[in-house]
């Protein structure tokens, strides 16, 4: 069956540009998560949705980061005025419920020049 998909897989942005990263979770999965993985590090939690409600955004590093899931399915992570330190792989995961196994997508590798 289809897993979590993310697009684009690779994104190069000039410093100061806005970017939008898309996540298509597994159908029927209520919970959706975004993580940021810097080079040589493990994934770090950014934010969590239950259906369309963003229940935890404690991991978002600054107010330049914004995530939404308006219809409780597809989610978009937006980064405004990108900086070089935003360069990382952005991983999306979904699960049936919040305390179930999280299934990860392949990630979007963002490079900010």
């Amino acid at each position, binding site marked *: 069956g289809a897993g*979590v998909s993310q697009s684009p897989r690779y994104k190069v942005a000039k410093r100061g540009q806005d970017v939008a990263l898309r996540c298509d979770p597994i159908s029927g999965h209520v*919970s959706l*998560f975004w*993580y940021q993985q810097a080079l*040589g*590090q*493990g*994934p*770090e*939690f950014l934010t*969590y949705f239950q259906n369309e409600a963003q229940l*935890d955004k404690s*991991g978002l590093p600054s107010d330049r980061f914004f995530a939404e899931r308006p219809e409780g399915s597809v989610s978009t992570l937006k980064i405004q005025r990108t900086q070089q330190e935003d360069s990382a792989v952005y*991983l999306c*995961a979904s*699960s049936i419920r*919040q*305390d179930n*196994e*999280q*299934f*990860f*997508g*392949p*990630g979007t590798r963002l490079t900010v020049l």
Partner: protein
Amino acid sequence: DQQVKQNSPSLSVQEGRISILNCDYTNSMFDYFLWYKKYPAEGPTFLISISSIKDKNEDGRFTVFLNKSAKHLSLHIVPSQPGDSAVYFCAAAGAGSNYKLTFGKGTLLTVNP
């Protein structure tokens, strides 16, 4: 401050032998622990988990051991196979926010034929 530590960046093992990957944590509120496996250009894949009420969980060739007093867990793979070569991430979650996974930096396991 890293709450989940994987102190060995890499491990090399001969096919058929045992692989032991280690993980230490500092946050005593963590009560659920997971291991994820990651191949290049793919997202992490769930491998095995353990709740703090147990000290061992086994699934086929994979066994996770938890030592709560030492705040230490380990993943044993027996027998190791070349297809097990990947980066292994240890992750932890705490009561009240059991969706928010905190990851270690990962250990690159290489199983040599």
